[in-house]
């Protein structure tokens, strides 16, 4: 089976400071991988390098493109990378406002992504936007409101709808449930899980929350000081951690 994403020896530095380094892994279709680690360990840096938001200093990030198979996204042309960002990839930001257009209606936020991939017919776009808002439990009567009128959890669900409407194959998420209260988080997790299964999505999820990865991720990667220090099946890494740092991380939360 061809991996959907193949990362080899990736490194990103900020001057002399390590952002992340020596990162290699394969992600297969339908797999969800979690990335955990303390603040400053390089999780967001890595995610942004994978999603084409940052240019790594070394290494390769090969994506299984529909037309040409595995292709290094770092060396491909800017327009080509942008097209992937609008079609096959989705990026869910921690703060919904970074991933939404706050002065455009909820329906417009979803429709805009569709138009970017050449959906033209207004009726279809609106119908599809309504359908997606429904899937993330935003009722039709709120379609013309702006995200500023929404609660944090609703904004996050809107961001997810905006991202998934084009049928991406790979979703990057940076702390998707951060800053939300626990019951809202649970709803979002449930939503993400069913979407992952229904659409056979692959996803890479950065989070501080071990309970979130336990429930969402098949595989787990633990980062420290810019390095990947441990990887494996999620429940195996959490229940039988090998590295001192991972043991500390797991034992410092009450129960996951």
């Amino acid at each position, binding site marked *: 089976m061809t991996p959907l994403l193949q990362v080899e020896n990736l490194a990103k530095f900020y001057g002399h400071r390590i952002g992340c380094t020596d990162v290699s892994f394969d992600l297969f279709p339908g*797999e969800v991988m979690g990335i955990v680690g303390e603040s400053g360990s390089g999780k967001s840096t890595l995610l942004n390098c994978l999603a084409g938001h940052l240019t790594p200093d070394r290494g390769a990030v090969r994506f299984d493109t529909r037309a040409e198979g595995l292709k290094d996204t770092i060396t491909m042309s800017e327009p080509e990378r942008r097209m992937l960002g609008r079609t096959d990839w989705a990026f869910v930001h921690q703060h919904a406002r970074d991933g939404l257009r706050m002065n455009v209606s909820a329906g417009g936020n979803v429709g805009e992504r569709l138009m970017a991939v050449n959906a033209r017919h207004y009726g279809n776009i609106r119908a599809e936007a309504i359908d997606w808002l429904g899937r993330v439990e935003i009722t039709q009567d709120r379609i013309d409101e702006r995200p500023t009128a929404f609660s944090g959890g609703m904004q996050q669900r809107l961001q997810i709808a905006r991202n998934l409407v084009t049928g991406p194959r790979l979703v990057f998420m940076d702390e998707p449930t951060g800053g939300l209260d626990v019951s809202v988080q649970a709803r979002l997790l449930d939503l993400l*899980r069913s979407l992952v299964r229904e659409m056979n999505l692959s996803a890479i999820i950065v989070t501080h929350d071990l309970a979130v990865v*336990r429930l969402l991720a*098949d595989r787990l990667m633990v980062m420290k000081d810019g390095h990947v220090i441990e990887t494996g099946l999620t429940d195996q890494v959490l229940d039988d951690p090998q590295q001192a740092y991972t043991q500390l991380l797991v034992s410092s939360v009450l129960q996951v």
Partner: protein
Amino acid sequence: MIFVENVSKSFVLHNQGAAEIPVMQGASLRVAAGECVSLVGASGAGKSTLMRMIYGNYLTASGRIMVGDLDVASAPPREIIRLRRETLGYVSQFLRVVPRVSTLDVVAEPLLSTGTARDDAMAQAEALLRRLNIPKRLWALSPTTFSGGEQQRVNIARGFAFPYPALLLDEPTASLDPTNRATVLAMIEEAKARGAALIGIFHDHAARDAVCDRQLDVTQFTPGLAA
């Protein structure tokens, strides 16, 4: 179906002196299709540890753990995920679920993820919940707020929903009343009859004697305890 050969395991607790604590050595076990083997031995002997190693939940330091034709001791995560979806079930002592997901969905999940159509999966899940006496009014609720015994039965329903060729059971009858206990024992018998290989841990001796064909005392694999 399950073939464990000469496996060992130790824990290193880095933040507690980093001493290496060997917990298993030379463990071997073979379970054929249609057979149920129980793991016995004193508390702390390593029964749950061996079961978790077979499931890939704990790493194995050396030796082989064949489930079907996959060596769990050396397989990459992706293959263990597939093994767990299609071949190897596990009823753990405690239920762990995504909050807000209904009991019916929790039980149907193993069927849905192996491609059973939704209506069919739901019908089978309902039948299992009915059989295990989970009141219908609870089906639409998340099991997170259920009593210990109810959660246990939901866990069993989920574990038996898909006809896994191999099944691991950690204390499946603990905290069950006699009626439900009898139901679970009948389900184990049915799994054997359809050719599943089962490994169980039972503190309930009568239950163990009723469904298990053999016992394996894991104390013989406990370093420092071996006779």
